[in-house]
């Protein structure tokens, strides 16, 4: 994050107060950090799954307005609890299981793009907004965009859990407001019903920019009922498979990609 220009002001690890990491101070608690450093805009949480709930609640109680976490395999009950607590205080969570997000040339939270040299090969400032359920595909789709000569405004890995702190619809609302963004691509997955929120948004004209989407998981229709592959969120629900979602989205003018590489051609005219 530091090498990519993010203004990291400090870290928190219980029992390690007073130490310095990369020239930044470490605190025992989020509250201590806030008392010392003043307002903090964003926190990103890296802890084992069993400690995630407490870490979240600490950040929420300290009113950090934006919380990201990479932590995978957080029990869904803990996630639901934290999302409810965050909502009560108007706090946004991106994740769980989110590698973070990147505004090329400006900064990043988390590890999207990997080491700076690699990130610089994949990301350059541009007009395409990127949303992905998959961390790897955030990079891969961003790379395909770059390879075709375009750049990204912001790329966000929303995480693959069944419960998402920030959904496609939440981000599309922000991309709608963002002047730099001219079109958005989404890498989605089968399961869950978040894509149907997009349909409503477009009908209500809350999102009006060109949008292309790829929904992975067509192959699951050949699997036995109830199988769960890949991300926990990808549980095939009746009437909410990849094909049903594609049909609903196409009906409101969303461009549907047959392969993830097709996303590039679909948005190129609008870049």
């Amino acid at each position, binding site marked *: 994050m530091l090498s990519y220009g993010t203004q990291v002001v400090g870290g928190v690890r219980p029992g390690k107060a007073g130490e310095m990491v990369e020239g930044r101070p470490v605190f025992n608690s989020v509250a201590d950090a806030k008392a010392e450093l003043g307002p903090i805009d964003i926190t990103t949480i890296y802890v084992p799954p069993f400690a995630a709930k407490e870490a979240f609640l600490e950040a929420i109680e300290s009113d950090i307005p934006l919380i990201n976490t990479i932590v995978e395999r957080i029990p869904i009950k803990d996630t639901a609890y934290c999302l409810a607590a965050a909502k009560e205080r108007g706090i946004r969570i991106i994740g769980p299981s989110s590698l973070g997000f990147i505004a090329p040339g400006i900064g990043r939270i988390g590890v999207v793009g990997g080491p700076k040299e690699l990130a610089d090969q994949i990301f350059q400032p541009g007009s395409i907004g990127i949303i992905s359920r998959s961390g*790897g595909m955030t990079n891969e789709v961003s790379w395909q965009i770059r390879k075709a000569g375009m750049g990204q405004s912001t790329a966000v890995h929303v995480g693959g859990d069944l419960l998402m702190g920030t959904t496609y619809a939440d981000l599309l609302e922000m991309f709608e407001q963002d002047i730099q963004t001219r079109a958005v691509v989404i890498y989605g997955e089968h399961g869950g019903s978040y894509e149907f929120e997009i349909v409503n948004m477009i009908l209500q004209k809350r999102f009006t920019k060109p949008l292309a989407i790829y929904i992975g998981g067509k192959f699951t229709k050949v699997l036995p*009922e109830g199988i769960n592959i*890949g991300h926990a969120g990808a549980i095939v629900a009746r009437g909410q498979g990849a094909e049903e979602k594609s049909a609903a989205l196409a009906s409101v003018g969303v461009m549907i990609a047959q392969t993830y590489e097709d996303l590039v051609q679909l948005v190129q005219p609008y870049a």
Partner: protein
Amino acid sequence: MNLYEFEGKALFEKYGIKIPKGVVIRRGDNVDSHFESLNSFDVVVKAQVLSGKRGKNNAIRFCSGKDEIKEAVEDLFSMEVRGQYVASVRIEEKLSILSEHYVSITYDTNAKQPVLIYSEEGGMDIEDVDESKIYKCLLDISNEKLELKDADFLGESLQHIFQSLWNCFLKEDCRVVEINPLVKTLENAWVAADAKIALDDDAFFRHEDWETFEPRTMMGRQPTDREIAVQEIDKGEKYYQGTAGKYIEFDGDVALILNGGGASIANMDALMDVGLQAANYTEYSGNPPREKVYQLAKIVLSKPGLRGLWMCGVVANFTNMKETFLGIIDALDEVQPRYPIVVRRDGPESAEAFALVEECKKRNSLNMQVFGKETSMTESARILAEAIHKQ
């Protein structure tokens, strides 16, 4: 993890929800000695499988008399239910049914909170029940006391059952609890005639008792030896748990070693689009150590009848290419496959990794093509299909 009916019912009982009196028969058990404890020959015999729709698939039999019961048990063990292996059979007392209702609690992904769903019209065709006859109420995850809106019509005894179900949902870290049908008997008692529970695998760390559940796959069949072997490799060191743990066997002949949950799903689609059939679904994610990747790759390559190997992943964010490919190379050196291999991958330290892979290809004379990020994943699927068809 999805529970069998008898496991679900045991949990319901633990939380005070009444279930029919019954016994579980496993393959090879002596049927007589078991059902005698029921003191009744008027029973329901139910195949224990993870699929729904058992009634419509002849997996539930109403019997009276010893011979009929024994015949039903034998018959159920000899069949597959919607492609699923019958692990065991539950024999239970027949209920005297006044009415059949439906109740479940699960997570509503849009509202991001649990939701209770109830209908007076339960039973086999719950999917077809009209929306107007379905009661839904979002639940507050931080409130152990169940508070239902506009629920006066439910009555006290039913609300009491729902509270027990909510306790079970919360305390047992469930993703789904469902009772269908929830039976009202002629004696005016509420009894859970069926049980469908999905536990949250991610909460395993706080439920040591879950270790005692018998192994199962989501495929509804017994796990294969190779599937069990992969689960074993993933145990090991806590820090790396979950990084190399996916291996599901299919009927096809193209071995897969994929990377990342999302990309692997896109790649399964791509494989299907080029007309190839997967021998397995395998992915490793995160940053697994060399040894783990080696063991995983060796198991993938050990399946008989393979005609190709596809190792495909995204431009990685942080997976170390060199470390992970060293594990792959160890396995290739040992197995030396003769069928076509296509690799598509990129990420940190990929130049070093590719140089090592090239050396491995040379010393083993492998029919192998290696691509970085300039070739897309879908393109590499096409290349593999061509190579296999050329053979």
